[in-house]
C-alpha cells in the first residue's frame, strides 16, 4: 500500500473550487455512495486535472511573456511587481477584456523596447516553454485515458449485480437443461 505520510494533511479536498467540481460530477452520476461514489470521485479528479492543465498551459505562456518583458539583467533579476502587472495586462489583452488605455500604452512601449509585437512575443514565449507544453499535452492525454478506464471500471462495478444475477440464472438454466436431458435419456433407455 502506498505510504502517503507525505501527502497526508494536504487539504486540497477542502478547497471550495475543487469540492464544487467533485459535487457537480457526483450529481451528474446521481450522487452514488460507497464504492461507486469513490470511483466517480476519482473520475471527477481526472476531469479536474484537465481543467488545471489547460489553464496552466495558458498561464505558462503568459508568465513567460511577462518575464521576457520584465527581465532586466543577465539573470532572472526581475521586477516582481512589474511582472505581475504585465501578467495581468497580457492576460487581459489576450482575452480581450477591458484594460485601460494607459496600461496598454505601457505594454506597447515595453514590447517595442524589446523589439516585439504581441504575436511575436507570444511566439517567442511559446518556443521557450515548448517542452513544458509538450509535457502538459501528454498529461492531458493521460487524463483522457484515465477517464475512459475509470468509466469502464465504473460500468463494470455498477452492472456487476445484474451481471451476476444474469450469470446465476444462465447457470441454473443450463443445470436444468442438463438435468432434463439426463432424465430424457434415462426415460428413453427405459422405454427401449
Amino acid at each position, binding site marked *: 500500500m502506498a505510504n502517503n505520510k507525505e501527502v497526508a494533511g494536504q487539504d486540497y479536498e477542502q478547497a471550495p473550487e475543487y469540492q464544487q467540481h467533485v459535487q457537480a460530477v457526483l450529481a451528474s452520476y446521481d450522487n452514488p455512495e460507497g464504492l461507486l461514489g469513490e470511483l466517480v470521485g476519482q473520475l471527477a479528479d481526472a476531469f479536474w486535472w484537465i481543467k488545471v492543465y489547460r489553464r*496552466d498551459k495558458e498561464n505558462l505562456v503568459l508568465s513567460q511573456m511577462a518575464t521576457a518583458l520584465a527581465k532586466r539583467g543577465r539573470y532572472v533579476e526581475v521586477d516582481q511587481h512589474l511582472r505581475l502587472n504585465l501578467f495581468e495586462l497580457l492576460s487581459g489583452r489576450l482575452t480581450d477584456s477591458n484594460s485601460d488605455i494607459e496600461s496598454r500604452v505601457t505594454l506597447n512601449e515595453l514590447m517595442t523596447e524589446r523589439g516585439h509585437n504581441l504575436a511575436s512575443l507570444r511566439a517567442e514565449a511559446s518556443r521557450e516553454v515548448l517542452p513544458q507544453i509538450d509535457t502538459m499535452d501528454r498529461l492531458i492525454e493521460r487524463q483522457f485515458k484515465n477517464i475512459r478506464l475509470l468509466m469502464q471500471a465504473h460500468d463494470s462495478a455498477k452492472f456487476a449485480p445484474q451481471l451476476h444475477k444474469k450469470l446465476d440464472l444462465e447457470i441454473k438454466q443450463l443445470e436444468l437443461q442438463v438435468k432434463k436431458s439426463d432424465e430424457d435419456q434415462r426415460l428413453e433407455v427405459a422405454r427401449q
Partner: protein
Amino acid sequence: MKTSVSKLLANRANALKSTGPKSQHGKHASSKNAHKHGLAESLSDGERAPSLLNAELVNDARRLGYSHEDAVALIDALQTNRSVILAKHAAYAEKPIEDRMPNMSMEKIDELLGWWMSPEVKVTPRERRYIVKLLYKEVEKDNDPVRRLTLKIDAHRKLMRYEQRAVNRLRRAAKGQK
C-alpha cells in the same frame, strides 16, 4: 528573510561536517532519504493485508456481487489510485509565500552573504561562489512563476507511469480480472 537564509547556510555548513549516521536507527532513517511518495512499492506489492483496506468499501463491493477475493483486489486498486491522486495534489501544491526566498540578484546575495557571515568563518572564494549559486537557485525556484510551474509539471510527469498502472489495474480489478 535573514533567518531562513542564515538557517540554510548553517544547515549546509553542519551537513559538511557530518560523516553520516552511526546508529542502526539513523542508518535505517537515512536509507529512506530518497523516498518520495512510496507509490512504487505500493504498485509492486500486489496483495495487501485486508485489514489495511477500507472494510466498508470491501463490503460494498461484496454487496455489488463481487466475490471476497475480487472485492479485496478491487478496493486495493481503488485505494492505490487514490494514493496516486493524493501524491499528484501534493506535488502541485504551491509553496506558502512566507517560506519562499525573496527575489534578489546574485550580486545582492553575495553582498548579503558577506554581511551575514562572521569574520571567523573561513570560506574560500570558490566555496563562496558555490554558496551564492546554491542560494540563487533557491531564489530562482521560488520567484520565477515559469520555473515553479515547470517543477510542478515535472513532478506530475514523473507520477504519470504510476497513474497509468494504477488506473489499468483498477479497470482490470473492476472487471474481476487478475
